[in-house]
């Protein structure tokens, strides 16, 4: 049941950001976000200045997790695509390799059909990048520098 840890490296991060940016343009969306299953925001693009993206990411992951629970009750493998239709804003989410959630927020400037089409294509591109990233996970090259952190340092953080 243990999940594989996802460490994001520069090369793949740049590739992922390019896919996310392209999806924003191609789908004529307002916002595109890539989120992991725990709600950690991995990449974002679009009109995010006045948006609580951290909250949106966490709630999206919660939503996908809950939908996965519904799928289990119905003996489905999962629901790869979700659509939320609002008065002004709509959301499409797509599960990438069952590890990441690609989310598109869009309005009347585009159509659900176009978004869905582009979303799936972007999802496929991300799956390829993710595969490369998974192969890289066990390679060294990232020093966390956490060895030198003392309990006192942590106490001081709280005393600020």
């Amino acid at each position, binding site marked *: 049941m243990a999940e594989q840890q996802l460490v994001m490296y520069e090369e793949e991060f740049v590739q992922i950001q390019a896919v996310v940016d392209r999806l924003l343009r191609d789908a004529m969306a307002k916002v595109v976000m890539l989120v992991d299953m725990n709600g950690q925001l991995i990449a974002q693009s679009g009109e995010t200045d006045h948006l609580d993206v951290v909250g949106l990411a966490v709630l999206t992951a919660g939503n996908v997790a809950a939908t996965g629970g519904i799928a289990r009750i119905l003996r489905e493998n999962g629901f790869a695509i979700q659509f939320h239709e609002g008065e002004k804003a709509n959301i499409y989410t797509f599960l990438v390799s069952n590890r990441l959630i690609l989310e598109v927020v869009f309005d009347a400037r585009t159509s659900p059909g176009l978004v869905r089409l582009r979303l799936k294509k972007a999802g496929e591109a991300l799956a390829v990048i993710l595969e490369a990233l998974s192969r890289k996970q066990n390679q060294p090259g990232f020093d966390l*520098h956490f060895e030198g952190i003392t309990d006192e340092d942590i106490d001081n953080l709280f005393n600020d």
Partner: protein
Amino acid sequence: MPHINVMTREISFKVVYCGPGLCGKTTNLRYIHEHWNAGHKGKMIELPTETERTLFFDFAPLDFGEIGGLKTRFQLFTVPGQVFYRETRQLVLKGADGIVFVADSQYPRMDSNEEAYYELKEHLQGLGRTLEDFPLVVQYNKRDLPAVATVEELRELVNKSGVPDFEAVASTGQNVFETFKALVKLVLAELRKKK
């Protein structure tokens, strides 16, 4: 497992507050979020039912600034405590880097404490972990109320593994930060262990 972005040098941990229904998990989170001044904080999200019980989870993002050259963020979650929310509890607990178990010190809540504790134990076993080797802190909350069990009694019930524990009054903030701080230490120690 923490999320690490090598390029932006960010590390993000998930911490979950669990325990029986109405034991004070959300109160802990609210207090920490309101009084957080060690760094930036995002908006707190609460998903309560009409009776103020947590339906799915509460969430508070806290930035610590830099630790060891990395921008460090802790994302705090609570789970719903009621027995029948087991399914959503498991969803929120998934991927946790550390857990605070909040026990309700009042005598009538002992069965609920015990039930929640065993569910947590089962959850960790499902991950191939134990209460002893997972970053876990226990908090005995509501110490200000009458008819509360002694700390020894509570330890016997919900801290058999002898992890760090604290007597607290979450509504006034007593030992709320101390509990969280102890968990942060364990979570970072766990990361050092993995190296």
